[in-house]
């Protein structure tokens, strides 16, 4: 039902069920918000979006208040502006105000608001709070002093990720975003996905920085620093340097990394091809034995840690190959660099990931001696951008560095790992080849593409039709598992990514990204699949070569030791 409402003395058509903010967004009136998250149920907590409505004595929050017929709304009246300004001033009263040193400076919602409200002095002087920074976790750092308690992280953790590792604790001015028993994030059910960082408007949540470790390694003459990068890095890093994502950026990125001082540059997509080979063999073995099905993919470390913590009975269903990052690290340390004359302990493997959980993964997955790391330092895309800027590398004037045919040949299947559904697509191509000896007639599986959190497809391999699903966001997996347990659905392979839409939306990506960015990243990955010559993992010449020279056949005992992983349940509170 449609009706008119009066907004700032202008008649506007509104629909029943809409909130005031919905209408304002449609007609292009901006009201500031701090706690509002598109696509989430509004909480009405921050009160920044308040507007004046005739007949209601208090100001009402536009994000949660429904429009009603003949409502008279003023969005920027003096009373409203005063209220908003005071609210920001109140937040600033107890804020550390260390913008110069803050990682979030320039990208901070609170800073923007203070600017928007034209606040030029500190009006209220609260006592400086001495709050402990939680650095216990390998991936995420929490600084409660900068937190403005908007609650966005809580909602993302609960509604999108589904683990509820954080919530509000305490009362009044002692209210904090806290964890169980107020212990460090390392001892929580947190799966380190980093989505909380992505929604945090201030610098209260950041990734644990490894920049210094990387710089130290670069400057240590005894070390042999090498780097690998995830397929989503070339798809998204251009955003920071105003370069459109395309095939060329890959070679620019390579050049930049070389210039920074990395001796060898690897593409994690290549390792993903190994993951596909081993996983395909794993699946075929399971199929033959009729056990541990559906097979669930294990390349997303957040998802693996979710399963270990919340649903360990499904652990046998998890595919056993290590994730591409770890396979890459293992191969570099055990074969590639050693065959180039380097000692394994001198090789320093850095990995660039769009993900914070990978930091934790690298920390946990070590070599047999339990001390040597397979991957020595993991940095996020954001950290890489900072290193590039710090070291004065001008992205636009670089000479593109061609692919090193020995180390970083990739298939586009491996490259597709960056988006939900892509891993599955690449995996199915190789499974088809391994089972039938023939390539799939249609490599592209349209049902598994696009920005959707639950994608399902039926794929015919030989005489059998397999039902597969690609899921992102833990609550969606929960629903799927419920379906399977109630025998409403039956799947052969399930691909899971913890972050909505997969790594292109990972917790290590550029801050303040929007849906436009997501679409561009997705397109970049699909474009590679269209343009690249080698589209399947088993045809990647490096993969074929390495299986010939160094590894045994996929799924064999020797490979299990080198490329697969043993899982155990971690301790949490």
């Amino acid at each position, binding site marked *: 039902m449609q009706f008119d409402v009066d907004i700032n003395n202008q008649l506007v058509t509104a629909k029943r069920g809409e909130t005031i903010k919905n209408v304002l967004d449609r007609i292009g009136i901006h009201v500031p918000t701090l706690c509002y998250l598109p696509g989430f149920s509004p909480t*009405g907590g921050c009160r920044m979006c308040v507007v004046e409505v005739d007949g209601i004595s208090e100001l009402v929050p536009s994000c949660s208040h429904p429009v009603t017929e003949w409502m008279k709304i003023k969005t920027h009246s003096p009373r409203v502006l005063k209220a908003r300004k005071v*609210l920001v001033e*109140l937040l600033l009263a107890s804020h550390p105000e260390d913008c110069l040193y803050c990682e979030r400076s320039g990208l901070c919602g609170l800073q923007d608001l203070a600017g928007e409200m034209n606040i030029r002095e500190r009006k209220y002087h609260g006592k400086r709070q001495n709050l402990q920074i939680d650095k216990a976790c390998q991936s995420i750092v929490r600084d409660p002093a900068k937190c403005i308690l908007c*609650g966005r992280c809580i909602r993302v953790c609960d509604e999108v990720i589904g683990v509820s590792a954080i919530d*509000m604790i305490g009362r*009044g001015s*002692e*209210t904090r975003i806290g964890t169980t028993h107020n212990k460090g994030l390392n001892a929580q059910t947190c799966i380190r996905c980093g989505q909380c960082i992505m929604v945090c408007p201030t610098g209260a949540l950041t990734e644990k920085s490894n920049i210094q470790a990387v710089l130290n390694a670069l400057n240590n003459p005894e070390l042999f620093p090498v780097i690998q990068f995830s397929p989503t890095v070339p798809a998204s890093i251009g955003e920071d340097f105003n370069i459109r994502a395309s095939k060329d950026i890959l070679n620019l990125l390579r050049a930049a990394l070389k210039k920074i001082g990395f001796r060898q540059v690897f593409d994690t997509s290549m390792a993903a091809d190994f993951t596909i080979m081993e996983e395909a063999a794993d699946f075929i073995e399971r199929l033959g034995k009729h056990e541990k099905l559906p097979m669930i993919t294990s390349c997303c470390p957040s998802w693996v840690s979710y399963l270990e913590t919340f649903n360990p009975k499904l652990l046998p269903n998890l595919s056993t190959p290590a994730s591409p990052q770890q396979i890459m690290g293992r191969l570099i340390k055990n074969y590639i660099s050693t065959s180039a004359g380097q000692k394994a302990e001198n090789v320093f493997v850095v990995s660039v990931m769009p993900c914070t959980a990978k930091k934790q993964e690298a920390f946990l997955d070590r070599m047999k001696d339990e001390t040597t790391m397979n991957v020595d330092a993991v940095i996020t895309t954001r950290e890489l951008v900072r290193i590039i800027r710090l070291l004065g590398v001008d992205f636009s004037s670089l000479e593109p560095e061609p692919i090193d045919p020995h180390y970083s040949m990739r298939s586009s299947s491996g490259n597709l790992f960056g988006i939900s559904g892509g891993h599955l697509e690449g995996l199915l191509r190789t499974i088809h080849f391994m089972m039938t000896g023939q390539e799939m007639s249609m490599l592209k599986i349209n049902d598994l593409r696009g920005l959707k959190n639950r994608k399902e497809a039926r794929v015919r391999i030989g005489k059998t039709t397999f039902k597969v699903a690609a899921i992102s966001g833990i609550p969606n997996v929960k629903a799927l598992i419920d379906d399977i347990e109630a025998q409403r659905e039956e799947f052969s392979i399930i691909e899971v990514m913890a972050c909505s839409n997969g790594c292109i939306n990972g917790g290590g990506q550029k801050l303040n990204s929007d849906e436009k960015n997501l679409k561009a990243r997705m397109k970049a990955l699909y474009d590679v699949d269209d343009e690249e010559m080698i589209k399947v993992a088993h045809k990647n010449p490096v993969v074929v070569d390495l299986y010939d020279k160094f590894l045994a056949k996929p799924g064999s005992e020797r490979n299990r030791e080198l490329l697969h992983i043993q899982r155990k349940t971690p301790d949490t509170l």
Partner: protein
Amino acid sequence: MATLTSNETREFLVEKILKNHSNIFDKGTLEQLSIIRRTKVVKPVIYIGMGTCGLIAGADKTLKAVEKYLTDHHLKGDVVRVGCLGLCSSEPLLDVQLPGKARVSFHHATEDKVEDLLNSVFHHTLLTEKLLGQFTSDTLEKWPGIPVIEQLPYFAKQHRIILRNAGIISPFLIDDYLANGGYKSLYKTVLNYTSDKVCEIVDQSELRGRGGGGFLTGKKWLITLGTGSDKKYLVCNADESDPGAFMNRAIIEADPHRIIEGIAIASYAIGANDAYIYVRSDYKQSLIILENAIRQAKEYGMIGENIFGSGFNLSIQIRQGAGAFVCGEETALIASIEGRRGMPQAKPPYPAEKGLFGYPTIVNNVETLANIPSILENGPSWFKSVGTKESRGTKVFSIAGMSLHTGFIEIPMGMTLSEIVNPIAGGVKNGKLLKAVQLGGPSGVCIPKQNLETSIGYETMHEIESSIGLGGLIILDEDACMVSLAKYFMEFLQKESCGKCIPCREGTRRMLQILEEVTRRPKDETTHETLERFKGVVELENLAEVIRDTSLCGLGQNASNPVLSSLKWFRDEFEEHIFDRKCQAGTCHNLRTFFIETEVCNGCNICQKKCPENAIIGSIKLPHFIIESKCTGCGICFNSCKFNAIYFK
């Protein structure tokens, strides 16, 4: 007449009394009923007020002393534990009823007094020192020359509907409630009325929610009734958390079955089969009594499956609140019942449409629900005959503070506040003068002397920028410091804010900071801080306005009430604190310095020994002195001086 077994009593009360529509009984039934009601007793009955107030005053020790007295003197008597009569400051109350004689009541009956008091009753020579009075009775012989309780100033002006049974019957026995006409309204309702009819009756009665909002109860019920949801909930809000308010606790502890009956009728009216009672976990006695009452009501078939064969089912569960002030707000209360953190939600949607577990939910205060059985019993026009045009019925207030009597009272709407102060509360004690009345707890206001002639009602209170609130009433004498009081309430609210919305969480913190600066020690202040203090004071009203305008729930919206009302009516006092740096009442420690009257001081040296700051010098038997710069104004010397030689400025 032979005494009945418990099963026979139950059979008798349910079949012969409850189910008798006419209320006309034969002689045998009446006789039996009067035995259960204890209007006729064959052996002495001793009643002890065992509400929380009584227990704090030592009623459990009194109970033991009474039992010991009975065994020691080989006397056969019944001991009945009752709730509070309302006169909490006179607890423990001990009533004795001898066969054929009127029930007589003693105040302050501590264990050491029991022997004397009971001796005096059994020897028919009442000890007048502790005597409160006797209860009126048509059938029993009166004690000569003893005042009647109902005519005492504390009770004479009250109009007791909800508190009819308080302190009279035992809250532990459903038989007492049934024998006094209890559950008749429920019986009548579920068998004769449709849900619509019940909502209509309550709507016609114009009963308004007693939790503070004052929304029409019937209207609220009709909204939920009309939602057409297959599942609905009723929640009884017993999370009374205002400092100085305790009437809900007293109602529960004195007459729990009245609330259960109210809940059952309300649930029937809106179509709910599940009801929750949300009680603060610190109300231990209330919890014990409610749990017992619910169990008994289930045994007697008053709640449970297929009540009175009507097909109506109701289960009542108790949920304990962990003691958060904000959980009195209905959406926060609902969140707490659901097991989530007690934080308010943005309204709309209102709980009446979408509440507990997403279903339509009615949240009613204890007092609102306690009114329901009487409205259904006597009809809406009877209810409307009490009170004023805008505000029908009665209101229960709890009186705390500096009055002669403290406790809880039930008065008809329309009475003035000054009538409550005097005669009901007996005026201010210790011969001090009345300064103001604080009404409605931390979200309430201070009403100065000149406004006390206002009649009590939702609209009239609104006219003097006040509200009835939950009904907590604190009487302040001339020694009260309004700045301290405002600071106390601000501190309370600041601590109890849930932290969800910025204005309430941060704003109350800043307001408290400003008030703290006003009462800061002048000596410790730098010039810059003095400037900040003045800036703060200028900002206070500004801040209060934004907090009221933008807060998410009532806690924040009303958080500035105590400060704004004190500022309005006691501006002089604020200015004295701000400009003169003085606190007349001497409550603000930091604004006072102590001096010794050298002519009075005899040099006993006690103050010097006790001073934690070593600010007092002097030799024994010679006058002492206080070093002004060292004195922190703590007042320990003032309290320790036996010769009144110390004074403050």
